[in-house]
């Protein structure tokens, strides 16, 4: 007997009795409605089944080696406390469906309510949904929502927003409905060029989108900008890909942002070669009925006990169908749970300390590398845990040199910004040791000679 029958419990006897009860002779008869000529006469061309130990051995062989690295750019290597995998491995959390039957889903529902609250607290906004697919699609949906509310044709999008997020936005937006206008970044500072932004800002703009910290790790100063946008009747959309930064940065909500859409992978979610991640989406109470995604609300039951339910579902696809605020159905529920547990562990003091450690380590790396001839950090504005390094030599050659020392030294930017063809994005987190940074700086120096 094949091992896969541990997943399919029917014995031959079971099947026989069931067929008898149904009133057909053989299993094939159950598929009589499918024309015979279309039914497959031979098995699917797939590998023969693996036993469990063989499967593990096979997969082990496909793994990537784990190297010291300075990679970031929207996905970050942060510490994941052991309690997270212990708790999300509880099958009552991960083998459940969407909580449509609230009486037996209070665990999931309360956890999402806590998640929504934490996201509001983190971003300074009034209401958050239960998650989106990732930062990129979350930001794209923010633009769609701004269009629904304001209705104007243009959107101003900072070039310092993550290039892949911008590509996703471009894919989502219907050019017949909305026009994207790029705002360049200021070459010396690395921040969105305010002058150009104000030049382009007019009554035809539904929203302005800026990411902070931006793709270069630079912290954007939204102070002067948001009021001007509101004066023109537009919305301020703030994106982010490094949630930890908000352990110390002023939350966009406090500055007057209208929609905040970003990536929560830093909050306890494994890198996993790019996914699954966690889209965060938060906005003002007055816009709540225009929000995409699921929402959990507090209520009481028949006996007056507090409980939680999915609510305002009339925005969603299963009710509003073609007029829904989005087609999103399955989101990133378990990832939201990971983030909730992460933030519960770190809490008020921990998130702050974590952010300060990231900042301090990145500064240490910046200073170390400033001593090296042949490379220098280029932007003058304050950064969080990422910065751009300019290399006099050939960056690919430099990275090859670092590879010899088993270090992935940074992310070359030429593929995203052709004008930054001698530049690397360097990311340092609390998981990068001083020793690693010293080794990296040393190897960088050697490779730059």
């Amino acid at each position, binding site marked *: 007997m094949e091992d*896969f*029958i541990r997943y399919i*419990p029917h014995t031959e006897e079971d099947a026989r009795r*069931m067929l008898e*009860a149904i009133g057909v002779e053989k299993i094939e008869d159950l598929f009589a409605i499918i024309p015979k000529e*279309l*039914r497959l006469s031979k*098995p*699917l061309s*797939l590998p023969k089944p*693996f036993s469990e130990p063989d*499967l*593990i051995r*096979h997969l*082990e*062989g*496909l*793994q*990537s080696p784990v*190297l010291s690295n300075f990679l970031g750019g*929207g*996905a970050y290597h942060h*510490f994941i406390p052991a*309690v997270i995998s212990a708790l999300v491995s509880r099958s009552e*959390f*991960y083998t*459940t*469906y969407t909580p449509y039957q609230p*009486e037996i*889903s209070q665990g*999931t529902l*309360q*956890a*999402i309510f806590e998640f929504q609250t934490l996201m*509001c*607290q983190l971003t300074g906004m009034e*209401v*958050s949904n239960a998650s989106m*697919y990732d930062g990129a699609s979350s930001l794209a949906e923010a633009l769609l929502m701004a269009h629904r509310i304001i209705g104007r044709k243009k959107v101003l999008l900072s070039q310092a927003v993550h290039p892949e997020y911008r*590509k996703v936005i*471009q894919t989502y937006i*219907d050019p017949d409905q909305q026009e994207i206008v790029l705002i360049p970044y200021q070459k010396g500072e690395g921040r969105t060029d305010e002058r150009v932004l104000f030049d382009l800002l007019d009554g035809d703009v539904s929203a302005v989108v800026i990411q902070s910290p931006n793709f270069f790790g630079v912290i954007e100063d939204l102070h002067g900008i948001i009021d001007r946008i509101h004066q023109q009747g537009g919305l301020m959309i703030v994106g982010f890909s490094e949630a930890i930064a908000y352990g*110390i940065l002023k939350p966009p909500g406090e500055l007057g942002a209208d929609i905040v859409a970003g990536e929560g992978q830093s909050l306890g979610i494994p*890198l*996993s070669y790019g996914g*699954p*991640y966690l889209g965060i989406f938060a906005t003002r109470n007055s816009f*709540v009925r225009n929000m995409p995604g699921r929402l959990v609300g507090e209520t009481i039951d028949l006996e007056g006990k507090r409980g939680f339910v999915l*609510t305002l579902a009339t925005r969603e696809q299963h009710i509003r169908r*073609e007029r829904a605020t*989005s*087609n999103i159905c*399955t989101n990133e529920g378990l990832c939201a749970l990971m983030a*909730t*547990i992460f933030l*519960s562990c770190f*809490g008020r003091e921990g998130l702050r300390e974590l952010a*300060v450690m990231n900042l301090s380590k990145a500064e240490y790396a910046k200073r170390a590398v400033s001593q090296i001839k042949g490379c220098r950090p280029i932007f003058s504005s304050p950064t969080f845990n990422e910065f751009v390094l300019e290399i006099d030599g050939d960056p690919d050659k430099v990275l090859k040199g670092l590879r010899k020392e088993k270090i992935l030294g940074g992310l070359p930017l030429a593929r995203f910004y052709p004008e930054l063809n001698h530049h690397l994005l360097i990311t340092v987190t609390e998981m990068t040791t*001083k020793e690693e*940074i010293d080794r990296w700086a040393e190897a960088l120096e050697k490779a730059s000679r």
Partner: protein
Amino acid sequence: MERIKDSGLIQDEPLIFEQGGSGRKGYSLPQWDVEELDVENLIPCHLLRRELEGFPQISEIDVVRHFTRLSQWNYGVDSGPYLLGSCTMKYNPKVNEEIARMRGFATIHPYYPQDLSQGILKLMHQLELFLAEITGMDRVCLQPAAGAHGELTGMMMIKACLLKRGERRRKVLVPDTAHGTNCSTSSITSYQMVEIKSNERGVISPEKVAEQMDEEVAAIMVTNPNTLGLFEEDLGKIAQIVHRRGGFVYCDGANLNALMGIVKLGDLGVDVVHLNLHKTFSTPHGGGGPGAGPLAVREELGPYLPIPVIEKEGETYRLNEDRPYSIGKMRAFHGNFGVLLKAYAYILSMGPEGLKRASEMAVLNANYLMKQLKDHYDLPYDRLCMHECVFTDRFQEKHHISTLDIAKRLIDYGFHPPTIYFPLVVKGALMIEPTETESKEGLDRFIETMIEIAKEAKENPDLLRQAPQKVKVRRLDEVLAARKPKLRWTQQR
């Protein structure tokens, strides 16, 4: 049937914000091996926040107790039968969870150099081939994060293909049995939805499609088997009608669990199909994700696939973004790799015979259930079904009992209710999908319970109306939740 009385392990638990306090610590960070810098020296004050107001301060043990208690209020596939129609809540193999946690997968950054990610790329490429083989299509994209995301991708690709032909079609045909995402996807892609009514057999007829099909129609979005659990028997003819006028056939593949190894959707005339890995391919549902919704397409639509595309040259795999006709990117990076892994492992564990057996047993289970329950519950389509069947509350209406009451009473018996009130074309729908991982004993227990409930509806309907009773919370006031939305906890000062 003697029911063991359940004990009171259900403990109450406040919100995480209502616990702990200053001085409690639940985290551990690496040692400070660099100088701890003063933030205010590096970043201007006006860019800094004062504090993380309202954030918990709680010890590790209290975090663990909090979420452990929360988990005990939930019911998952591991708790018992989860017969939600259209969701394919099958068993989630544990070995797949272990594989996803392997360091060489879980800690790998998406921007890792491709020469160091060959195993990962090979896995993804092979998964694409597997899914193409199962569906009978040519190319696959693994990027979409969920079925709805896959639908969006597919419809965007169809739109791009038509535009390249110089055609600006404006309509999409959608059966009345369609899932809500089909409709919202059409509208997001700026198509006008035209509804096709199913016939008295519960399927769409070629005549109805022919009536609506013209050169303005970009595509028809079908689900096969459909949401009534019935095989769309005329799909082949319908595909011909649509193709003849230059349109595409989009298939919502959520119900693929009925067809693996039995028939290929490509052979039925489908051009684009999305799959739900968190349904058919056993990856866990997570309480609302993460999932994955890969898209399988015919060669004709290949050029429009999102970037990056995984290509094999000799023995090397690479990510290719140089695709001039691609619709672009549906997300940053490459897709939900942590989910794709599990589906890959599942397919390898099952092999061709396993997948076919899964579909056969899924269909066997559903028909068995249907036969055993049809004398007790109204069955609108009384013929062999596929992997799910739909009942209504018509027999129970005369006792003023609704589908909702039946569902809530099932909870008291320790079952997760089936899907209720969907599809919309059946009034009071009760959609049951047992999946193949449910044993005959499990099904018999469910059948017995449903029969008992039907009896209660006649003799003691209050039991249903008051249900559920043996739970942490009784029926909740959804009206209050919608009238006065309270969507977050706020600090009381």
